């Protein structure tokens, strides 16, 4: 097990039988406690017994106890090896219990009709949600919108690359420009939706509207026709996230050895050709990483849409997340919303895996 370790530790473990026993007791005893507590709660909920629980907190506490005992027990039983496991185990337990368990639970919810505000509680309804989803034009509309939003990453990337190139050039006041360019990323999307979406784009006296009037747009209204609204949302989202790509690309540019560009210049490559034949190919791995990460953030896009247009006009700006958010707000039906989200997750996983495979293969073949 330890043959692949980068760091070799030679330590003499003398683990006495008592210590080992206590450790084993912790590892195997705590799940028993957890099971007992959970059983008592289940009995109270469905079996009619009254143990005086008001909520499921006791089970949570028992679970936390189990997690602590599991970590501690590793060290007691396995000694040095256990101490190594202790590095990764807490984070792994944390993530597993907070994603895998809710996801499984989510699968149950997805196949049921569950209105949180109605007293009936959860009712299993098979594939009804799936059928409803299939016939829900607004959901498919939101998915199509997501495709457009994702496509907007390409111009964002070009712009970010341009900005990074300028920051990498020999300029004065680089620090000032870097801080200035970084600023939009620091702002909360909710504040941005008011600052830009509601106030600067105010049709009567917002500065952006005034600017547009000067540029010849008679009645600048940024959110009344579908495509204008969609592009406005894209622009606002781009405004916040271009710095993110820009900084990753800038880091990549600064890592390129100067000699390579000088060599290209000696060989007679002028600016434009030097860029396409030297800089750009070298930047490909960084570019792919930054675009993929940007894609991940793009798929979460919701805050701006919820706060500026709440999906309007006619669902033209809806993202999947904002649609599900409103679906829950308006009907408080968790079952249907979860089914929509699960379907979205499946699409994302398929697309992302495909993209990563593609990127991987492309990178391998080009070197």
């Amino acid at each position, binding site marked *: 097990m330890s043959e692949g370790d980068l760091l070799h530790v030679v330590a003499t473990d003398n683990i006495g039988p008592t210590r080992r026993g206590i450790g084993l007791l912790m590892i195997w005893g705590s799940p028993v406690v957890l099971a007992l507590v959970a059983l008592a709660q289940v009995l109270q909920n469905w079996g009619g017994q009254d143990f005086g629980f008001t909520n499921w907190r006791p089970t949570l506490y028992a679970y936390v106890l189990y997690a602590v005992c599991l970590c501690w027990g590793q060290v007691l039983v396995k000694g040095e090896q256990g101490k190594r496991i202790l590095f990764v185990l*807490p*984070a*792994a337990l944390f993530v597993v219990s907070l994603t895998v368990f809710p996801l499984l639970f*989510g699968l149950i919810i997805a196949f049921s009709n569950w209105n949180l505000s109605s007293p009936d509680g959860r009712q299993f309804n098979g594939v009804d949600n799936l059928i409803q989803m299939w016939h829900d034009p607004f959901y498919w509309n939101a998915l199509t919108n997501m495709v457009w939003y994702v496509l907007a990453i390409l111009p964002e990337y070009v712009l970010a690359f341009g900005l990074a190139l300028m920051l990498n050039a020999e300029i004065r006041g680089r620090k000032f420009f870097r801080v200035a360019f970084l600023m939009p990323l620091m702002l909360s999307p909710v504040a941005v939706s008011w600052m830009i979406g509601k106030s600067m784009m105010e049709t009567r006296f917002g500065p952006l509207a005034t600017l547009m009037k000067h540029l010849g747009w008679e009645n600048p209204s940024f959110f009344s026709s579908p495509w204008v609204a969609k592009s406005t949302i894209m622009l606002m989202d781009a405004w916040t996230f271009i710095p993110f790509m820009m900084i990753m690309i800038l880091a990549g540019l600064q890592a390129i050895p100067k000699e390579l560009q000088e060599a290209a210049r000696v060989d007679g490559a002028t600016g434009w050709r030097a860029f396409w034949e030297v800089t750009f190919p070298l930047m490909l791995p960084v570019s792919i*990483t930054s675009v993929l990460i940007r894609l991940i953030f793009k*798929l*979460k896009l919701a805050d701006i849409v919820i706060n500026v247009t709440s999906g309007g006009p006619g669902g033209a700006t809806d993202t999947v997340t904002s649609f599900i958010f409103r679906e829950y707000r308006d009907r408080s039906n968790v079952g249907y919303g979860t089914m929509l989200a699960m379907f979205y997750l499946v699409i994302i996983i398929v697309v992302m895996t495909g993209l990563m495979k593609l990127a991987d293969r492309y990178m391998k073949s080009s070197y």
Partner: protein
Amino acid sequence: MTTQATSGQIFRDAPSDILFRAKWWSGRVLIYGLLILWAIVALFPIYWTMSTSFKMAPDVMKGSLVPWWDFQPKWLGWKSLGLSPETITQPSTVRGEFLRRFYNSAIISVSSSVLAVVLGSLAAYGLSRFSYKFLWMKNADISFFFLSQLILPPVVLALPFLVLYKELALLDTQIGLIILYTLSVLPIVIWIMRDQFAGIPTELEEAAMVDGQTIWGAYLTIILPIALPGMVAALILSLVLTWNEYFFAALLTSTYANTLPVMVASQTGSQGISWWSMAALSFAAILPLIIIGIGLERFIIKGMAAGAVK
């Protein structure tokens, strides 16, 4: 005859040199022009929000921009928040509300970021130094498992968590949000820290262990100080993300544990709200991050660059 020759220049720039210089200058002008243009694009909304919070209604209507020149700054917006010089000493319900939300945001974002950095850097260190095997999963699989959490959109977890939290009485509590936020920034922290630890040679710990340190002792006394800049970068990036988070906060809190973005959003929704107080509120909400951005910019850049360059 000689006057002609001496008055004129003997050495002239060749036409190609003049052309080159002209090209150089136009290049300079172009690049600074573009840089300044984008700086305006990036900074103007912030300036607009800040200046609007000092404007009266007619100034807003006119679209005035320059203080003291085309409008007289007033503390109007800040007065409605209870944060102007006159009102700061008097009791104010709005200020109380604002400070409570601010406090919630601060507690939640700081504790979740610290928790994520602690958990994440431990895991990243372990993964960079030892080889693990759990069932069929080896190190690469475990790393991938952590990082794959990034593609999990929040909306998938939101409704199950809503139901679970309701049963666990964690709805509308700070701890509930802290747990979720930690989960959402943990992959990013692991991503940054993995690179950090990979750059530190293992000889350092080996030397420490020869001197009688345990592995945890070596980690705490030798490795942590070296990896500190990276940890700060991860911490700040987490702070930015958690401070700005809106979706989970809007779903899972109602009255007690609301964060600042939820408050800003609820004010935006109401139509009658005055511009100056809205501007003051927005600006107060983004101010901490603007300060962090200016002061700790190099850490943010370091953090984001960590994954980009291998």
